[in-house]
């Protein structure tokens, strides 16, 4: 354990009475909402899938918010300070095409198969082996992520507010435990929608006031160039022609193929944490629209994440440093968002900003824990441990699993204290399972010849490839030039290529093994594979209500943003 974390730290901001009242009201509100929703979460469908009653807007905002945690906000604001507008790629090419692809192409299969989870889809498509492997790896990752979220929140609260780290961990996790165990996915979704509004209202003032201070966008660019004349922080694509001409050590192939085609597609279309929100939609059209609605807001998120980092580059007198070289009196990249909050926000607004961060962390924990409860109950407990129990038994298992999952997360949070760089490893670990899973799910949906043995072997081979590449690059830095195509590739660039190789291996192994093994009969593939049975058509609705129309609008807007910030 790192005991330095337990000592009183110099705090970045001080809270007034009104700020504390705003934070207290938030905790009270989420608990009350959890208790209120308990009466609506009595059956398995209610508890694990919010009754499949959510409108496209609620499912869409929840889908986006499940990913918009505070770890994400603080981390990417810090990355924007470090890498400039390149960080916006994770919100644009790293999200928008995948969200639209999920809505238009993949959602019909998830929705009409009536699956409750992504491992549940693999069960229908490939059988128990691939589903079990994916469920176990997903359960492991969600619990780890929940614990890391918890630890990150406690650490931020300690650095920013000087709060005791144990107090933050226990109060936040008990609150999340009570409201998720009460209302299940209903509670998680309601709180994610609340969090969405809190984050926007809590963070949007920073770019508004920052741009006023810097003299608009042109003034901001001029100030950054003045402060950092040797770097180009304000162009998204024009510096990606060579690894050495941008601060990330990234090449455009890594962004387009590694991030856009694999990591992003894998995360947004197969990570059950986000897909679960869309499965809760009330009908197929809402399920298709939900990720597309989310994509419009996702395009705007750089306003509250990337822009504060750029404003930090322009207006802060001190130069922030990496965590690894932090000295007393200095601030790290990851503190840029709290620093901006303290710069512009007085009493009340500061409380709102801190509440937005707390809400983001708690929603992150709730999302992970509710997804874990579903996958454990439906994809591990029911098929492998107790097959034929009553619906009430599985709901009860889901509630207990939420509590047990939280306690394991608390253990993980304390474990995380011992490893300064655990965040880097968790991010890498996360990509181990997501990149090959995308290959497996996509082949399963689009190629009826893919066999159960092929699916399992491909998923396993892809995962082992990612782990192997990660370990070999850590053990021998010379291999970075081999796997990531340049010795200058930094951590994020390495992750992109690692994901790309792992997905390619997964696809190649799945295809090779499938061609040598027996496929499932077509009668068992109805509703889960493209071309085996017709996909239900949408009802005859005006063009403004059609998901495909809004998907096209989102793509045009996305292309326009790339052009503006080229």
């Amino acid at each position, binding site marked *: 354990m790192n005991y330095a974390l337990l000592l009183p730290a110099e705090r970045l901001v001080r809270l007034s009475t009104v700020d504390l009242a705003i934070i207290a009201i938030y905790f009270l509100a989420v608990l009350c909402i959890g208790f209120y929703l308990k009466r*609506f979460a009595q059956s398995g469908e209610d508890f694990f899938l919010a*009754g499949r009653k959510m409108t496209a807007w*609620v499912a869409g905002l929840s889908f986006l918010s499940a990913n918009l945690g505070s770890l994400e906000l603080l981390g990417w604001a810090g990355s924007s300070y470090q890498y400039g507008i390149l960080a916006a790629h994770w919100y644009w090419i790293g999200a928008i095409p995948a969200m639209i692809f999920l809505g238009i192409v993949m959602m019909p299969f998830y929705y009409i198969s009536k699956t409750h989870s992504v491992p549940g889809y693999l069960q229908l498509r490939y059988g128990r082996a691939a589903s079990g492997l994916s469920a176990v790896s997903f359960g492991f990752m969600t619990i780890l992520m929940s614990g890391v979220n918890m630890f990150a929140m406690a650490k931020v609260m300690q650095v920013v507010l000087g709060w005791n780290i144990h107090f933050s961990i226990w109060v936040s996790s008990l609150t999340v435990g009570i409201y998720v165990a009460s209302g299940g996915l209903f509670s998680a979704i309601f709180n994610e929608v609340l969090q969405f509004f809190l984050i926007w209202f809590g963070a949007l003032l920073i770019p508004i006031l920052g741009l006023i201070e810097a003299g608009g966008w042109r003034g901001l660019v001029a100030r950054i160039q003045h402060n950092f004349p040797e770097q180009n922080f304000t162009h998204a694509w024009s510096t990606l022609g060579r690894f050495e001409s941008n601060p990330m050590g990234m090449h455009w192939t890594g962004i387009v193929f590694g991030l856009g085609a694999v990591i992003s597609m894998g995360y947004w279309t197969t990570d059950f944490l986000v897909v679960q929100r869309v499965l809760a939609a009330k009908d197929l059209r809402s399920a298709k629209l939900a990720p597309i609605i989310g994509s419009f807001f996702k395009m705007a998120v750089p306003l509250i994440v990337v822009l504060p980092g750029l404003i930090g580059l322009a207006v802060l007198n001190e130069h922030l440093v990496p965590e690894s070289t932090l000295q007393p009196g200095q601030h790290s990249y990851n503190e840029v968002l709290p620093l901006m909050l303290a710069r512009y926000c007085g009493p009340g607004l500061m409380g709102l900003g801190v509440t937005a961060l707390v809400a983001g962390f708690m929603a992150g924990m709730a999302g992970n824990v509710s997804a874990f409860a579903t996958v454990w109950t439906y994809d591990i407990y029911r098929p492998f441990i107790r097959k034929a129990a009553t619906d009430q038994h599985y709901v009860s298992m889901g509630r207990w699993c939420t509590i047990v999952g939280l306690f394991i997360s608390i253990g993980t949070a304390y474990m995380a204290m011992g490893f300064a760089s655990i965040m880097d490893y968790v991010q890498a670990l996360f990509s181990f399972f997501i990149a090959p899973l995308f290959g497996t799910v996509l082949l399963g949906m689009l190629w009826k010849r893919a066999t159960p043995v092929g699916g399992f072997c491909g998923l396993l081979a892809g995962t082992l490839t990612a782990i192997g590449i990660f370990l070999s690059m850590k053990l021998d830095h010379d291999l970075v030039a081999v796997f990531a195509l340049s010795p200058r590739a930094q951590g994020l660039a390495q992750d992109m290529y690692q994901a790309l190789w792992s997905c390619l291996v997964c696809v190649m192994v799945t295809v090779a093994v499938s061609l040598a093994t027996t496929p499932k009969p077509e009668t068992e593939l109805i509703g889960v594979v493209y071309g085996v049975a017709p996909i239900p058509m949408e009802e005859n609705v005006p063009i403004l209500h059609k998901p495909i129309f809004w998907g096209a609008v989102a793509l045009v807007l996305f292309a326009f943003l790339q052009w503006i910030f080229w």
Partner: protein
Amino acid sequence: MSEKRQIIPVWFFVGLLLLIYGALIFMSGLAEWRNPSPTVLANLHASVWWGGLMVVLGGAYVILFRPRRSS
């Protein structure tokens, strides 16, 4: 859903929270009008107009999505 009871829309809760927070921030901004906190651009009194905006939006959501008795 397993009960016949209508669930209160999430938008009502969003509105209520924005309304309460907006009122607190607005009043806090008014209280420090003559003696603003030492933040950059404090002369713009962001708390007042941002809090006011939240009150208006929150109030609208509360009115539009308030629980109604089903006939």
